[in-house]
């Protein structure tokens, strides 16, 4: 792998982590968030400030960034429990813009210039090379996947999906939907915090516009394109949409236009996404493999 490929792989890994987080909030729990990049930013800035101003090593800044982002996410989650679906979407867009303004106009966050001089992580005095950093990102992706599987197989995950599919029915079964929405936001934004920290230490320089609304649209496009509510969809969506601009270089300029158009097309013609549960492609794949399966296990969703 050349350095260019390593860079693309690292970026894709960061996208996967972001999309997995959004999938927990919007896919499993049904809380439409169009401002996920704000939390990506919170994680990146938290990690950058801890590292540059306070001299924390990456290995400490990363978990602290995750925790701080999850706490900010909990606040938004608490707000979301008071909003209806449509107003939540608008509110999260608003939060994204407010967050970018805060980064941009406050000197604490380095203003419009952002924060530079963020150190690359080092281990036992050795500064990691790019390929080594890719291993760190890959480990984070793997951990994220493992945690997601655990979540889906737990009663917590079941309750989140219940809230996402019919809140009134979930409540009638004793599931406190506000609490579970807050938990969903905390989990999803924790992923964003990790992605932010990885991004900051990889770029070594961050500025407010990295975390704007267009970034949020990219993330939700990836989740929707792959298939909202499934882990495989989140991963495939981030890989395809993350790599597309690299493969079709001339399209880079139109990247946001492309993502936006794709998002609308998917919502209109294949809301289940490319390989989500019940999508044309996934049903095909399943029917190919279903013959030898035990009936009753075959349709278990959410994988």
């Amino acid at each position, binding site marked *: 792998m050349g350095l260019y490929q390593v860079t693309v792989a690292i970026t894709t890994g960061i996208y996967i982590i972001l999309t997995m987080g959004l999938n927990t909030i919007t896919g499993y729990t049904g809380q439409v968030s169009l401002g996920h990049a704000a939390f990506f930013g919170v994680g990146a800035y938290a990690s950058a400030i801890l590292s540059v101003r306070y001299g924390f090593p990456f290995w400490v800044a990363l978990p602290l960034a995750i925790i701080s982002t999850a706490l900010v996410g909990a606040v938004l989650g608490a707000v979301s429990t008071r909003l209806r679906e449509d107003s939540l979407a608008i509110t999260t867009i608003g939060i994204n813009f407010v967050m970018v303004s805060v980064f941009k106009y406050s000197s604490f966050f380095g203003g419009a210039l952002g924060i530079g001089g963020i150190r690359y992580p080092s281990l036992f005095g050795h500064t990691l090379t790019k390929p080594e950093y890719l291993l760190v990102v890959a480990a984070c992706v793997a951990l994220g996947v493992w945690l997601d599987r*655990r*979540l889906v*197989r*737990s*009663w*917590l*995950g*079941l*309750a989140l*999906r*219940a809230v996402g*599919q*019919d809140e*009134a*029915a*979930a*409540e*009638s*079964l*004793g*599931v*406190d*939907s506000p609490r579970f929405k807050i938990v969903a936001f905390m989990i999803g934004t924790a992923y964003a915090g990790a992605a932010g920290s990885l991004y900051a230490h990889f770029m070594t320089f961050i500025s407010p516009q990295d975390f704007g609304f267009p970034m949020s649209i990219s993330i939700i496009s990836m989740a929707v394109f792959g298939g909202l*509510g499934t882990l495989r969809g989140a991963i495939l969506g981030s890989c395809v949409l993350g790599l597309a601009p690299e493969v079709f270089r001339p399209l880079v300029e139109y990247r946001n236009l492309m993502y936006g158009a794709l998002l609308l097309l998917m919502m209109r013609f294949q809301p289940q996404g490319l390989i989500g*549960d*019940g999508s044309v492609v996934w049903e095909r794949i399943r029917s190919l493999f279903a013959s030898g399966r035990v*009936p*009753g*296990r*075959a*349709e*278990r*969703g959410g994988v």
Partner: protein
Amino acid sequence: MDHGVEIDLDRGCRAILLEVRSVSKQFHGVRALQDVTLSVRQGQVFGVVGPNGAGKTTLFNIVCGVYPPSGGSVLFQGRDITRLGSARTARLGIARTFQIVRSFPRMTVLDNVLVGCGHRVYGTLSGLVGTYGREAVRGKAMDLLELVGLEHAAGTLAGKLPIALQRRMEVARALALDPLLLLLDEPCAGLAFGESQDLVELVRRVRDGGVTVMIVEHNMGVVMSLCDEIAVLDFGVKIAQGPSAAISSNPRVIEAYLGKEA
């Protein structure tokens, strides 16, 4: 019907499980309920009947804590539950089904029921994040599916079941709460005759299992064969209450309800 009266006498002295005291509810000036008072005894099948728009569903929603009443109070086992909210009321042991079926459509039938089993692990961290399909809980959920005759459909996505079966799934899911009181809102709506008979049988079995049942139903055959006691609502007002036999011959009821429906 004689059988019904017999049961009524037998249960007359049982403890009061649910008390609805002078409950009123207004929606933007629409008076959905006015000063409704009734009490349900343990072990009863209690019917609530009345024409469309009489306030039956509103009454159920208030009992379940979906929204608080504009006035009055609700007591469950002597405890005031008027403003507890839906989830906490459910965990106290009041389960329900919906007039318009509300499944978790993209979850399997078994998973739908497992959501209802959650109260036993609720609050303990290990229960919350451990694997939910643990044998004990899963076995209990499968038993419930068997009770409603859905064991063969455990792995089917709930949204793909026909409505009649989704209604049964709702009953199993509600029973997963181990409720003391089960509220059924028009469980026979849209069912064929045979399917209604099956449902009547199911409700009897649930009652025999020790669960008190409150049921809203338009099918008078079903109501008469199931209920020990019936309350009649009309325009949000309770116009009659009594044993099934007495209600069906009450002239006010015939005029208000049966007259219009027939």
